[in-house]
């Protein structure tokens, strides 16, 4: 019997199988950031051991950092202490740090791919659940807890049970105004937030193959939102072209050799998955969430479900109470106070280009605050080079400096209590963007349309305007 993509990569990294079904998995790259690493460094210190493979660790500061005036000391004391602790720890143990002010700084899942650190066939971990982003390259990438961060520091390995395999095939044509974010929000709305638990997902099908690398990253990024350990996509020409010539990618002959190896990474025809789902891309319209988990999403032209349409009416009523929405409400026309464009899901250059293409020559609605936070310093510089910053500025949008920002509100970028934020991030949990904040998840294209209109709108209206001109 053939092997799945997941099995091929996993099997290449098994050091040893342990009784009870656990396996020792060798890790090629370990990303760390300031929030989930300090306790792991202390653990290493307390054990009196050294870090085993320092050259396989890359560190950045992203979760806590301000997105304005990054050259000044961080105002908030606890954030500053955490960012400083990362710097001291990296210095003490000899780890490469792309901290504030470094040209490679950015959200950990944005910088890995853009620097060519993330490559097909690797195993990658990070103390962050959206590590699944790197799966877009045909990589086994998953989030771990701090105890495991310490394990990897100590031994470059994790101990874990082999997850089950799932394939989600998406064929058919993707509609106009529909983006990767809509595809993944649609899938999560169908499978639920626990639909992928225990599984590693492979996304396949013609619709997935047609996507750019950045769009594939958006899809893999949100695998965790359906409970899956990770998601991956078989590498192809699109992947190789993306990796080629990046800072840390192999060059010349080494690159050719790598491509030969990477080309073997696909699911064999006779391989069997534990679970399979099929979707048709043409069924998908721009999506928006109405509730307090990423599974609570609908097509933007649709209504919030009513109680007898859902499995968990208690959960729905609690969510709608938090959002101050009613069952059966239309999403279109709902009021919006803030628009946040950023996060490891949608803050790459293609996202900013898309936003700029929609807002060019228009103005944001007066009452809406718009925050655009690039995923990395490099994305910010590229946006400036392309004049995107000017287009955004003219539309009344603010392009800030890179970091996680209002995705989780650990820095000062918080949404005030009770206010509505349309966000391109990945989680609409209660209080995620600040205590009492109300989040609706959308694609960058939809977010841009809503910022202009000032209320929830079908972004396809803006496509029609363009064709009419």
């Amino acid at each position, binding site marked *: 019997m053939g092997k799945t993509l997941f099995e091929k990569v996993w099997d290449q990294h098994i050091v040893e199988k342990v009784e009870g079904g656990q396996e020792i998995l060798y890790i090629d790259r370990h990303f760390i950031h300031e929030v989930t690493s300090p306790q792991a460094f202390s653990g290493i210190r307390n054990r009196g051991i050294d870090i085993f493979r320092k050259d396989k660790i890359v560190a950045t500061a992203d979760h806590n950092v301000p997105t304005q005036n990054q050259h000044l000391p961080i105002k908030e004391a606890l954030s500053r202490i955490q960012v400083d602790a990362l710097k001291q720890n990296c210095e003490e143990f000899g780890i490469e740090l792309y901290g504030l002010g470094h040209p490679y700084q950015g959200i950990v899942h944005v910088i890995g791919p853009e620097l060519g650190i993330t490559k097909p066939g690797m195993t990658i971990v990070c103390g962050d659940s959206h590590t699944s982003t790197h799966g877009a390259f045909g990589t086994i990438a998953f989030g771990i807890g701090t105890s495991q961060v310490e*394990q990897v520091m100590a031994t470059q390995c994790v101990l874990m049970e082999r997850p089950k395999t799932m394939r989600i095939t998406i064929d058919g044509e993707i509609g106009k105004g529909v983006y990767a974010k809509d595809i993944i929000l649609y899938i999560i709305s169908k499978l639920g937030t626990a639909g992928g638990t*225990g599984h590693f997902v492979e996304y396949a099908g013609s619709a997935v193959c047609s996507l750019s690398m950045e769009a594939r990253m958006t899809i893999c990024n949100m695998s965790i939102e359906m409970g899956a350990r990770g998601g991956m996509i078989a590498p192809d020409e699109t992947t190789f072209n993306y990796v080629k010539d990046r800072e840390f990618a192999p060059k010349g002959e080494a690159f050719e050799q790598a491509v030969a190896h990477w080309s073997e990474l696909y699911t064999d025809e006779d391989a069997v998955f534990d679970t399979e789902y099929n979707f048709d891309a043409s069924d998908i319209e721009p999506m928006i969430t109405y509730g307090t988990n990423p599974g609570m999403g609908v097509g933007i032209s649709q209504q919030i479900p009513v109680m007898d349409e859902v499995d968990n009416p208690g959960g729905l009523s609690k969510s709608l109470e938090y959002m101050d929405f009613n069952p059966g409400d239309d999403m279109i026309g709902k009021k919006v106070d803030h628009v946040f464009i950023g996060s490891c899901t949608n803050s790459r250059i293609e996202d900013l280009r898309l936003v700029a293409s929609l807002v060019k020559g228009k103005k944001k609605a007066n009452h809406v605050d718009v925050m655009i936070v690039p995923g990395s310093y490099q994305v910010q510089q590229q946006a400036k080079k392309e004049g995107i910053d000017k287009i955004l500025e003219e539309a009344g949008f603010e392009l800030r400096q890179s970091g996680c920002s209002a995705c989780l509100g650990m820095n000062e970028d918080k949404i005030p209590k009770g206010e509505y934020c349309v966000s391109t991030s990945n989680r609409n949990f209660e209080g995620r963007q600040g205590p009492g904040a109300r989040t609706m998840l959308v694609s960058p294209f939809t977010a841009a349309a809503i910022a202009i209109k000032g209320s929830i709108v079908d972004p396809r209206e803006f496509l029609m305007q363009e064709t009419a001109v």
Partner: protein
Amino acid sequence: MEKFEVLQSRAVLLDAEDVDTDQIIPARFLKSTSREGFGDNLFRDWRYDEEGNEKPDFVLNNNQYSGKILVAGRNFGCGSSREHAAWALYDYGFRAVVSSYFADIFKGNALNNGLLPVQVSEDFLQEIFKKVENNPDQLIGIDLEQQFISIKGMNHHEHFDINSFKKACLLKGYDDIDFLLSKKESIKKFEQQYEEF
């Protein structure tokens, strides 16, 4: 890590499904660089209002209920990988969480910190909810060696699954790092024949 053998305790009922780790410990409380003290902010925004006053309708503020076992609806611990969620539950005093379904990363984090996730059937979960609601002094027993959970004084018990390696670790109070460190030679041998492309 502390050993876990048997636990007999009253239980705290959290009647909610899909409890995510952002609720267990909100991001703004993740700024500590040590593992201690997170219990004070466990379920912060469900437990306290903005002024820091207790919300009387939240179960942790209801002194009828107490104990080392938290019982919650399905898909407990979804969302962020923050191990701080497991630390907060442990620091508050919980030693076991009972649910009909756990998110993967939370489950692993809990096991790595001596907090036992006990996955039971939906029916058994409802049974515990009913019994404890009627009688907050109802004791729940958890026997890790035998892998069963029981509603004390009643003929109700249920078997639960746990990976045999993780079980041995919990019973002995060992952690994975001790084990992996003992495998250093195999890891080095693996590295010699392994090529990264």
